[in-house]
Structures are given as C-alpha cells and as structure tokens.
C-alpha cells in the first residue's frame, strides 16, 4: 500500500516516460519510419505497374487505328477509249497504258459519284481524286490487266482513301492542323464529311495491313506488315533449325559427358559471357563474317537467322541444361543398370524426359530473337521497301527482305506521322506473337512439368 502511495498511478519514470499504452515519441518515430519504408516499397511497385499500364495503353491506344482503314466505294466505268484504243483486248497494248492513263477514269468516277449523290462542291476534278490514295491507279491497272474482258463495263471498286482523309476520320488530322498542308484542303474535308454521311466513304477493318507489303514514303495508307512477317518467319526457321540441335548437343555434352578440365571451364565461361554481350556486337560479327567475308547476300533472312542463332544459343543452352539437370540420376542409373551405354541412357531416357523443358526454353529463346532489332540494322534489313513476298524457300532465305521489328523501325523513321500509327500497329502484332509464344511456353511447362 505504501508503495502505491509513493508512486501514484504507477507513474514510475520509465526511461522514455509514459505508459505502455501510450507511445513514446521515439517509438512513434520508429513506427513512422516503418510506415514510410513500407510506403516506399508500395510506391516502387505501383510505379513499375503504372509504367507497364502506360506502355500498354499507349500501344493499344495508338496502334489499333492501323487495323482500320478508310475506303471509298466507287463505280468505275472502264472506258474502252482510254484503256484499249485498238479495241482488240491485246494484253501488250493494255499494258502500254501507264498508271497516268488511269487518272482521268478515276476522276470521272469521282465526279459521277458526287453527281449521283447530289453533293454540291466547288472542287475541281483533280482535287476530287485527291481524297483517294495514290495507290488507286495501280490497283485499277492491275485489275484491268488481270481482267481485260471487263473493259467497257462499269465495275464497283473499293478504293483506299488518302492517308490525310484516313487521319481525319481517325481524329489524327484536324481542320486546324491542315491549314498549311498542301495535300488536303478544308473543302476536301467537307466533301469527305458528305461522302461519309452518304455511306460511300467508310472506315472498315483493314486486312491489308496484316498481310500486305510495305509501301513507299508517299503512300502510308497502303503499307502493310505481311511481307516482313514472312521475313521474320524465315529467320525463325533458320534459328530453329540451327539453334535447337546445336544448343541441345552442347548442353548434353556439358551436362552429361564433360570432364572437369580447362576446356569445359572455358566453354562455360564463354557461354555465360555470350549471354551478356550486347546484341549490336552480334550484328557487327554478322556483318564482318557472313557478309564481308563469306559474301552472303545483304538483307537476306538467312544472314539474319544465322546472327540470331548465335545470339539465341546461350539462352537455349542455359535452359536445356537446367532441364537436363532436373531429370533425377536414378533414371540414368536404372538405364545403366540394365546394360545401356552412357550414350543410350542419355539419348533414350534422359533426353525424352527433358524434352518439355527444352521446348519451353527454345520457344522463349525464339521469342527473344523475334523481337531483336539492333543486329538486323547492321546486316541491312532496313532502308528499303519490302514489297515482294518470297515465292520459294530459297527466295525466302536469300532474297532481300525485312523483319517485323526492322519494319517497325523503318516506319518510325519516316517523316509522315501516318506511318507512326502503322509502327504502333506493327508493335501490336509483334507483341501478339510474343504473348502467344510465351503463353505456349507456360502451358507446355504446366502441362508436362514433372516433380520427381
């Protein structure tokens, strides 16, 4: 009792004072520091995720436009007087009419369409045709050469609108932004509005972007990624045909047979270093060895494939070794125990069990190679227009072509902003491929992964 009275309300002066229920300033400081520290962590993760979100929304927001294109539907009268003056449907004569010769026909078709729809406009016929792509004459000519019997008839065509008109419908081009533009005028945009209202001019899904060829600087509306997609495909075939067998063979040696000696050490050090060498250095190697020394053709997917093979090998070797390592030694022992040689044990038993892991690693390596750009710049896969799809296997490997990432870079360099939309669209396609490949790898791993 006396103790109690001496220390009223238990207020023994503890070092930092106060009760246990009441936090001392020091504790509060420490707890605040704790909360702050945790907040930094959350902020860092949020920052990372926001950046991912911004990146994805930018790509989707800017790229989806490339999958839509503005087309104008017109009835064109293929005048015999202009296209086949002699009237004998001789192909050689028809071919003599250049794309310039088709311009009046297109102008006439535009005028007729506007008259039919009853649209009032003060534009001259040349300006009327200006809302169509420069590609239209070539399209018409190709059609006539393919179907000479249609001359003299009226045929319905779907023509590409020019990139400015397309941009106007997509909101990229506005009436303010064209004040100093020589390619399009406000009157033409009025006409576009009228045509759109009449349903002659409309924005639809653009299959040509996915499967078409690249186009020259002046015709962004006609550019497609299809041909460079083929270039990428052929490169991936080369990578698969070389990197998979070589990588698997190298991993089998290192994991199953290699003795502990300087050669093995040297190989291991080299592989881990090659995995970290900047990709541009592989481009220099490709230029020096495959093109300057071996005189393989520049811009050929074969060369690109060889360079990417060297780049992908370390990835494949590292993942293959991991999956060989995960096969338990008891499998090998059992095989050796029933009389198999070491080679038979590895090839007949270990390798099949490791196959899903090897496949997963290969797909991931291929995905990496598919997105790689820098080495392709040095072996000349940019700077020209990939306009012809290869027809044979040898052509696909040896004829100059582009590749998807190189094509995207090429579009990003061009002056017309209409190409930027194509570049973002190309990135969507590229990322779709990568996502598919990685998903496939994950599914394979889930489906076949074995825990021993």
């Amino acid at each position, binding site marked *: 009792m006396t103790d109690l009275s001496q220390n009223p309300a238990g207020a023994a002066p503890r070092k930092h004072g106060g009760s246990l229920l009441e936090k001392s300033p020091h504790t509060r400081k420490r707890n605040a520091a704790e909360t702050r520290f945790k907040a930094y962590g959350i902020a860092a993760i949020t920052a990372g995720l926001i950046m991912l979100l911004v990146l994805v929304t930018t790509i989707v927001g800017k790229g989806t436009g490339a999958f839509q294109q503005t087309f104008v539907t017109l009835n064109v009268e293929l005048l015999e007087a202009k296209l086949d003056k002699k009237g004998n449907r001789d192909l050689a004569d028809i071919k003599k009419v250049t794309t310039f010769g088709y311009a009046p026909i297109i102008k006439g078709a535009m005028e007729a369409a506007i008259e039919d729809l009853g649209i009032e406009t003060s534009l001259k016929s040349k300006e009327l045709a200006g809302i169509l792509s420069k590609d239209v004459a070539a399209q018409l000519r190709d059609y006539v050469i393919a179907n000479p019997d249609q001359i003299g008839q009226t045929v319905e065509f779907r023509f590409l609108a020019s990139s400015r008109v397309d941009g106007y419908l997509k909101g990229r081009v506005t009436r303010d932004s064209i004040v100093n533009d020589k390619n399009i005028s406000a009157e033409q945009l009025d006409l576009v509005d009228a045509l759109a209202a009449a349903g002659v001019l409309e924005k639809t899904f653009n299959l040509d972007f996915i499967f078409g060829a690249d186009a020259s600087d002046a015709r962004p509306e006609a550019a497609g990624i299809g041909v460079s997609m083929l270039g990428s495909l052929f490169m991936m075939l080369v990578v698969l045909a070389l990197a998979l067998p070589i990588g698997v063979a*190298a991993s089998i040696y290192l994991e199953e047979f290699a003795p502990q000696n300087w050669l093995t050490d040297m190989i291991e050090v080299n592989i881990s270093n*090659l995995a970290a*060498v900047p990709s541009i250095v592989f481009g220099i190697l490709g230029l020096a060895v495959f093109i300057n020394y071996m005189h393989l053709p520049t811009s050929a997917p074969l060369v690109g494939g060889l360079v990417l093979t060297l780049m992908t090998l370390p990835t494949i070797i590292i993942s293959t070794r991991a999956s060989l390592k995960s096969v338990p030694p008891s499998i090998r022992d059992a095989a050796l125990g029933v009389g198999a040689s070491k080679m038979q044990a590895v090839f007949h038993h270990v390798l099949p069990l490791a196959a899903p892991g090897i496949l997963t690693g290969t797909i991931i390596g291929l995905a990496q190679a598919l997105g790689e750009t820098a080495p392709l710049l040095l072996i000349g896969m940019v700077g020209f227009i990939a306009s012809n799809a290869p027809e044979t296997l040898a052509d696909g490997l040896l004829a100059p072509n582009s590749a998807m990432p190189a094509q995207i870079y090429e579009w990003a360099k061009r002056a017309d902003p209409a190409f930027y939309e194509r570049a973002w669209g190309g990135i969507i396609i590229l990322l779709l491929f990568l996502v598919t490949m990685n998903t496939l790898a994950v599914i394979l791993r889930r489906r076949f992964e074995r825990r021993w």
Partner: protein
Amino acid sequence: MPTFWLVVLLIALAAAGFYGGRRRAIATAAGNVKNLHSLPSYYGYHVALSAFVPAIAALLVWLLAQPMFIETRVSGMIPAAAVPESSSIGLVMSDVRRVAEGLDLAVEQGLLSAREARNAVAGEQDLRALMGEVGVALGSEVRPEVLKAAQAYRNLSHAGRTAMTVVVTLLALGGFASAYVRTHKDFRARNVVERAVLALLVLAASLAILTTVGIVLSMLFETKNFFGLHSWTDFFFGSTWAPNFRGGSELSILPLLWGTLYISFIALLVAVPVGLFAAIYLSEYASGAVRAFAKPLLEILAGIPTIVYGLFALLTVGPALADLFGKGGLLGVEWMAGATSVLTAGLVMGIMLIPFVSSLSDDIINAVPQAMRDGSLGLGATKSETVRQVVMPAALPGIVGAVLLAASRAIGETMIVVMGAGAIAKFSANPLESMTTITTRIVSQLTGDTDFASPETLVAFALGLTLFVLTLGLNVLALYIVRKYREQYE
C-alpha cells in the same frame, strides 16, 4: 545452287548408307540379329556418319577458306601502281569482285559466251554498259588491270568450285565404301558411333568458344585496319567526334563514351531505387497473393522488345518532355530543343531495367538466411530496421553485382538510344540536350552505303571492340562479386 545439290547428294548418300550398312550387317550375321555385336541400326549409323560427316566438314571448311585464298592470290596480282591515290587495295578488290560477278551474270543470261567472258579485253567492248544491263552498276569504266584480275578471280573460283565438288564427293564415297566394307557382325559399330557422336557434341559445345573468337577476331582485324588509317591517340584521347567522308575526320570515342555513361547513369537512377524497393517489398512485406500478382507483371517489362521501348521514347516520352520543357511548353522554359534528349532515353531505359534490378535483387535478398532476420527482430528491431541494418548489408555485394549487370545492359542497349537520344556528340551536363552514344554511332557508321576502306566506317569496329571490352569487364566483375557473395552463405 550447286552447293545445295551437293548437300542433297550427301544426305542421299547418308540415307543409302544407313540402309546399306544395316542390311549388310544382318546379312553377315546370317539373318540372326543376336549374332551381331551391336544393334543393327548402329551399323547403319556407322556407314551414314562415315559418308556424311567428313564430307560436310570438308565442304564447310572449303567454303570458308576459298574466298580467303582467292582474295590473297588475286590481290597479289594487282600492281601497287594500279591502285589510285585516293583509293585502297580493298576498294579495287571490291571492284574486281563486282566485275567478276557481272561477267558471271552476263554469261548466265547469254549476253556473253563463256569464251568471250574469259578473253574479254578492256576497251574493246563497252563492258560497263554490259554490266549495267545485267544489273551490276559500276562507278567508272572497267580498267584493264581490274578486268584481268576479275578474270583470274572467275577462273580461280570456278576451278575452286569444281575441285570442291570433286573432293567432297570423293570423300563421301570413300567414307561410304570403307565403312561399308568394314561392316561385319563382329565389328564394334556401337563403340565407333558413340565416339563419333561424342565428338559431334564436343564440336557443338565448342561453338560458343568459336563465336567469341569470331567476335574478337573480326573486330580486332578491322580495328587494326582502322588504327592504320587513323591515329589511336585521337581515338582514345581526342575530344571531338566529327566524321567527314571527304577525309580529315576527327573520331574520338570520349564524347560518345560521355553520352553513353550519362544516359546509363540516368537509367540506373530510375531503375535502381524503383527496382530495389520493389524487390524489398516483394520479398519482405508482400503477401503471397500480391507477390504472385506483381512479380510476373513487373517481369513483363523485361520481355518487351527494345524496339517497343525505342518507339515509346521517340513518339511518347520525347514529345511529352518537349511539351514540358520545350519552347512554348507547360513550364514556360525553353530548355529543350527537340524530342530527343539524354533524359528521354535515360527514363525509358530505366523502365526497361526495373525488372532486371528487381528480380536479381529479389533472388539475392531471399538468399540471406532467415536466422539473421529472426535475430534482429528478436532484439526488438522493426521490420524496416531489420531490412536496413541487417538484410541490406548482408545482401549488398550481390546487389552491387546486380546493378553492375544492369549497367552493362544499359551501356550496350541500342534501339532506345538510336531512337531517343539524338545524334550530336558533345560534352554537356544538361540532361535535356540530345547526345549520342557508342551504339548509336556504330549503327549510323555501318548502315547505308559503307566503304570498308575508310576510317569513317572502320571506326565502328573500334567502337564495337571498346563496347565489347567494357561490357565484358562489367559482367566479369559482377559475376565475380555475386559468386563471392553466394559462397558466404552456402
């Protein structure tokens, strides 16, 4: 494509060898497989491998060696007087190759007979027009020495190709025959085949060494040429980068190195704090669900191709920064001239490196033994105090290694700086100015029309070699630190 058909022939021989060897082995065992030393297919593999492997190896070596041999022979034929003042033997040789190629094409298209091509004399016909007709554009009239050298070049390469076909075919047939003759029921086919397969495996593994040697040699060789044309003191210690294709260029690596390091520094300034704190949060604080959600999402950033980041820098980040700091921008300052700048490239590269830093640091933090944390928490430290005073010091060497690896990635990164950093080489501390880097210059010196006899092109190889050495050094250092640290807790 004669090489192609030669390979097809080899494959056909190998297939025939497989069946032939197998059948012969079974025949010598009187149809009873039990009498054989090895399984029947091993006899088949034996014949197939003997026919295929030496022949294809000879083919590859021949294809690699022939150009070198012909090159030295033909360039020895060109007298020093025939090389013009402003040119070099390399340029004359490329003319020779083009003329030879033009003659080949002309013969192929029937414009010249084989005899005419062999005996053509410069000046008698308009060879330049002829070459133009088959699609080989020549800069000037064909000079007699060049034409002579080109004819020698053609003769040698024709002879070489014929000899190659003969040698390879003979090797294949010889291998086939000797293996086929040796096939007998007592022959130890399996042992022989397994030894051969092992040799092939060793060969595949050695390709890694071969690649490294190829990288180093190809760059070393051209770098040597470069230093023959340009002083090495200017390259390493000069202060200006001003390539001029008319000669008299100043090619110093220092301004490029400055740009490279500055951009990498900014990238690390973004990536290291974000990545490190993300790793600490994920490994020390986050619940399993958050970890399973956030970690793979962050790692997506590492799987995105660099061209995407490059486009992001060029078309989104750069213009956004220009809107902030540029003329008529939101801040009302005029610090930025265009969209490309050190900051543009650095920021975007930083985003790319976040997952790199975070997943490496995450592994390293997880490797710190739990007992150390428990001890610290038991003494009354809060979680953050434990992380700062116990876990971090223990993990520091590993994290330094991770940062060094990220730095090496940043230095070697190409697409982001090509599209986001600009092309002006200078020393400046202003992050809003555009600067250029080593990788950017490699790309610009080696794309488009290049002339492999001018220092302006060859400098790219010297830059590449420097880059290779720099990143290699960083990687080796980082791996050394990480390995040393790992040993501490194992």
